[in-house]
């Protein structure tokens, strides 16, 4: 039984030697780091960044749309007021002409009678 225990213990025991890093481990890691440092970083100009374009477009829309909308509304109101003025003139002229015709008929009828 003891033999079996010893066998198990030796099998499961920590093998310090196998856990040790190879002697050139540090050198390899350093070499990799140096390689990483050497990776070329390409700096993209601002005008090629989609976010910059989106921001510029947003700012342009914000700058152009409200004044255009206000101008459109102002012109529409001016047209409507002009149309209203013309409508009043037209209805008034119609009224005047209807009254004149009525008076003329009354006059001519009186003459005939």
């Amino acid at each position: 039984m003891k033999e079996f225990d010893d066998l198990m213990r030796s099998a499961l025991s920590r093998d310090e030697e196998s856990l040790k890093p190879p002697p050139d481990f540090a050198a390899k890691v350093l070499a990799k780091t140096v390689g990483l440092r050497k990776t070329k970083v390409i700096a993209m100009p601002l005008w090629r960044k989609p976010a910059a374009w989106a921001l510029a477009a947003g700012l342009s829309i914000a700058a152009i749309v409200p004044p255009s909308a206000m101008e459109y509304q102002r012109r529409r109101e001016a047209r409507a007021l002009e149309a209203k003025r013309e409508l009043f003139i037209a209805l008034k002229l119609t009224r005047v002409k209807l009254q004149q015709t009525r008076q003329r008929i009354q006059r001519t009828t009186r003459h005939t009678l």
Partner: protein
Amino acid sequence: MKKTFALLALALPLIAQEGFDFKTLDKLGANSRNHTNITLDGDMLKLASGFLGSGKDSDSLKPLVDSLKGVYIRSFEFDRDGQYNEADLDPLRAYLKQMQWNRIVESREGKEVSEIYLQTRSASRVGGLAIIAAEAREVTVVYISGDIKPEDIQKLSGTMGIPDIRQELLDRKKDKEKKKEDE
């Protein structure tokens, strides 16, 4: 050939329904001193209707304006007698006749002519009102198309809150004189 004529005959009333070209009346005003040209189509009338405001007068005017399809006025004033040719009104008369408008009033008193035409749709509905008023020094054409009730025509004889036209015309005259002076 017969088919072509038949198609043409069918198309003619459709072409006629396109409406009268009021530019043909511009000849009347060639020698005019003052003129009033008003052309309000359906879209412009809708636009104007939206700006009528609120109030008793506007509320009564709005249904009438909403039912109109077009308002056309041509009015010319002349300095002297005989500065327009009454025959220039004939195309409009012919159009009204062709479109089966009824001349309900015709009054002639010397050189003064008044004609009122109605396009009747039913006993209670009128499809349009046209007035031709010609005097020695003034000629006016009023053409209103749309669904008009007879009581609306009566209403037109009232004020309906419409501003004084004389003042409007005086203002227009002043504006024109001012523009001429500026030029």
